[in-house]
């Protein structure tokens, strides 16, 4: 027979009672988490064979949809401004009808470009016109879609174009991660390595860093 473990004292139990309830997550954090999860599904992570509990290896899943992370507030702004771009919308996984606490999602999945737009809008000063915002957005989204369909040459062209026109945009981090991915996938290891070193120097705290490092290991 197993002995009964020592009991906790009443005052410690009282403290635990304070910790027991699960507080509601802030809406922005919630929207960001769900957006990343949907992006990962859209990129097909379910088909990977990857043992669970290997965090660094699976980060790239988030990176796959990397440009479409946005806060719920910014998403609302983008939606109000009506930024639209049709062709890439099917990349977004359908929003399940079960969602209740995040009303911005309940009307169904916004086109992925809206989410991208949200991030650009949140980061771009007012002096940038709506036209410029749309162009930066579209360029990066096209590059991401090219990577997703493994057309890495096309992706590199688009990334170079993005770098030329939006050198200091807020999507630089995503752009450079996609560049490492594209170069490595094309077997251009030296360039990929250089791009990865630059990435690390520029974004030492990036959540994409583990994924970027791993790209080099798994490249052909």
């Amino acid at each position, binding site marked *: 027979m*197993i*002995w009964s*473990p*020592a*009991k*906790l*004292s009443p005052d*410690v139990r*009282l*403290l*635990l009672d*304070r*910790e*027991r*309830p*699960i*507080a*509601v*997550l*802030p809406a922005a*954090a*919630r929207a960001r*988490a*769900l957006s*990343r*999860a*949907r992006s*990962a*599904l*859209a*990129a*097909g992570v*379910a*088909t*990977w064979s990857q043992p*669970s*509990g*290997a*965090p660094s290896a*699976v*980060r790239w*899943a*988030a990176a*796959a949809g990397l440009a479409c992370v946005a806060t719920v507030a910014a998403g609302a702004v983008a939606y109000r401004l009506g930024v639209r771009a049709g062709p890439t919308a099917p*990349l977004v*996984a*359908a929003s*399940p009808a*079960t*969602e209740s606490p995040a009303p911005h999602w309940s009307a169904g999945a916004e086109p992925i470009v809206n989410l991208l737009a949200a991030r650009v809008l949140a980061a771009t000063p007012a002096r940038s016109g709506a036209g410029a915002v749309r162009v930066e957005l579209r360029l990066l989204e096209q590059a991401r879609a090219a*990577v*997703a*369909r*493994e057309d890495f040459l096309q992706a590199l062209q688009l990334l170079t174009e993005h770098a030329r026109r939006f050198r200091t945009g807020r999507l630089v981090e995503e752009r450079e991660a996609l560049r490492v*991915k594209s170069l490595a*996938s094309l077997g251009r290891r030296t360039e990929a390595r250089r791009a990865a070193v630059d990435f690390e120097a520029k974004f030492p705290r990036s*959540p994409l860093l583990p994924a970027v490092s791993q*790209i080099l290991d798994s*490249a*052909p």
Partner: protein
Amino acid sequence: MSHLRLVPRAAPQVTLDDACLGAFQQELAYVYRSFRRLGTSPSEVEDLAQDLFLALRRSWSEYDPNRPLRPYLFGFAFRIAAADQRKRKREVAFGIVEVDDNGPGPEEELQSKQARAVVLTALSRIPLPRRAVLVMHELDDVPVAEVASVLSIPLFTVYSRLRKARRELQAGIRRLLREAGGE
């Protein structure tokens, strides 16, 4: 080798995606809090929660919906937090835990936040394998048999870890309160 591949989905897979996302969505706050209780810093919780989602999705076809969801999720959180801790090769144990959450109501907020901070700090000083057992049983009210099953350890081990962890928690909280009172 490419990690980015848009694979055409068969209908059942879409259903699995939706079901898994629905479960993640439903228990998102629980997942975040569990990582905090396991010692993950606030800035890392979001990334680890994404790792959990991906691991969850890959295993979702094996999930038995008749079993409670939270312990199942906690099992993932524990393994991911443990792997992350090993990777970082640093124990979060002896730091002061930041208070990052919203209290339940304005009038109780301060007191509740302090209590939560004390509990999290005391928890963080208990080694992770014992901490996981303690959190599951004492905070999530998971029966010991279920704890053993989720963490894949013998029942006897659950009891011995629980007993030791309770002592450690008790001593840790007393020490924290004494330190706070002595200043």
